[in-house]
């Protein structure tokens, strides 16, 4: 066969076989746009409140006097406090860390690792001979809340470079999202895609589109501010699955996948939820 034809054929076959992250994202968003033609696409950063008119008013009044304000303030202080060696967190980040959270997680081409905002903060501490902080709540999550605050209104922009290792992270997250697990044998897809808008007991299942735009979150159920990975662990426990550790490869990959699905939405963290 003519070489050109073979090349063309492999080109079309590979397009057919390989759904790119971008085509995944479009189909993912369209699922919700079709289900909720009356919800403006930009509203999907409001989580379950985008589709729950009944509780939206109450939520909006909570956001007027946000319970996480105190965390943002203390996060700012912590972020600006120098390490023992005299340097600050700002030295580890582009733009001194301000207005960049909406671009995390980031794939690091040097190491092949996937770096979330919280991991980057602890890496910065390590590089400056400070002990790492905890990932579920506490000072590190307060700092993350402050950085989220400085990214408010910016468009979520997660990059998946054309690098096998980056795509592997993405695929790992996608697979985690779609795989049934736990004794109750359910997947994220089961609840947040296929049955979105329905009730499990009194809980309305919210869309996965926009899951990551507003973290960390002050949850009244927790009575504190907590990280996205803490929430992931909760959803895993509810189906009687053993939760993964915060910042485990699984949860970082999951965050990469879910954040990429949210590309184009406005960052609006930190947030308040039930």
């Amino acid at each position, binding site marked *: 066969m003519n070489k050109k034809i073979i090349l063309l054929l492999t080109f079309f076959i590979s397009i057919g076989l390989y759904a790119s992250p971008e085509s995944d994202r479009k189909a993912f968003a369209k699922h919700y746009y079709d289900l909720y033609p009356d919800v403006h696409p930009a509203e999907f950063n409001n989580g379950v409140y985008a589709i729950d008119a009944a509780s939206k008013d109450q939520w909006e009044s909570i956001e007027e006097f946000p319970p996480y304000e105190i965390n943002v303030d203390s996060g700012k202080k912590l972020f600006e406090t120098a390490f023992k060696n005299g340097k600050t967190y700002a030295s580890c980040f582009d733009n001194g860390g301000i207005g960049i959270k909406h671009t995390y997680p980031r794939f690091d081409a040097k190491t092949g690792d996937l770096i979330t905002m919280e991991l980057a903060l602890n890496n910065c501490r390590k590089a400056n001979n400070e002990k790492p902080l905890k990932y579920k709540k506490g000072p590190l999550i307060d700092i993350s809340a402050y950085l989220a605050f400085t990214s408010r209104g910016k468009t979520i922009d997660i990059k998946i470079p054309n690098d096998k290792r980056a795509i592997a992270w993405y695929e790992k997250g996608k697979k985690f999202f779609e795989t049934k697990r736990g*004794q*109750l*044998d*359910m997947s994220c897809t*089961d*609840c947040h895609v*296929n*049955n979105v808008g*329905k*009730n*499990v*007991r*009194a*809980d309305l*299942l919210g869309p996965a589109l926009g899951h990551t735009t507003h973290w960390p979150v002050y949850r009244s159920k927790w009575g504190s501010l907590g990280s996205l990975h803490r929430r992931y662990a909760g959803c895993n426990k509810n189906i009687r699955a053993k939760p993964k550790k915060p910042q485990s490869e699984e949860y970082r990959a999951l965050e990469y996948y879910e954040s990429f699905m949210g590309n184009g939405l406005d960052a609006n963290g930190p947030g308040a939820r039930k």
Partner: protein
Amino acid sequence: MSFIKKTLKFSSLAIVFAGLLNFFMLTSVNSAEAVGAKSTAEGKKLTFGRKKGNCLACHIIADGSLPGNVGPPLVAMKVRFKTKKALRSQIANSRARNKLSIMPPFSAKKILTEKEIDLITDFIYTL
């Protein structure tokens, strides 16, 4: 100690009471029906129990409070399922009919014992 005594007292009372109840039931109706009524009552408890079937998480069921609506309401079960066996199969293994079902595979994942599935089936078949 006094707590244990109290509960002992209470449970022996309950046993006497249940015995009396049984006695009246056995004398008033035939024994097969009595056993049936007892097992549907047990089945109902397992169906509603959050740690057991927790079927209300997803199904509207007569008498159950705070139901979800992920699955269809469980009504007219004898019309929907010609035999009790077919209904049991749906409850034990939802994935036989719908491979991707969100309804948990209660038997394979040992969420319920086979006996518990029998009891739940007895109850659901009365709906």
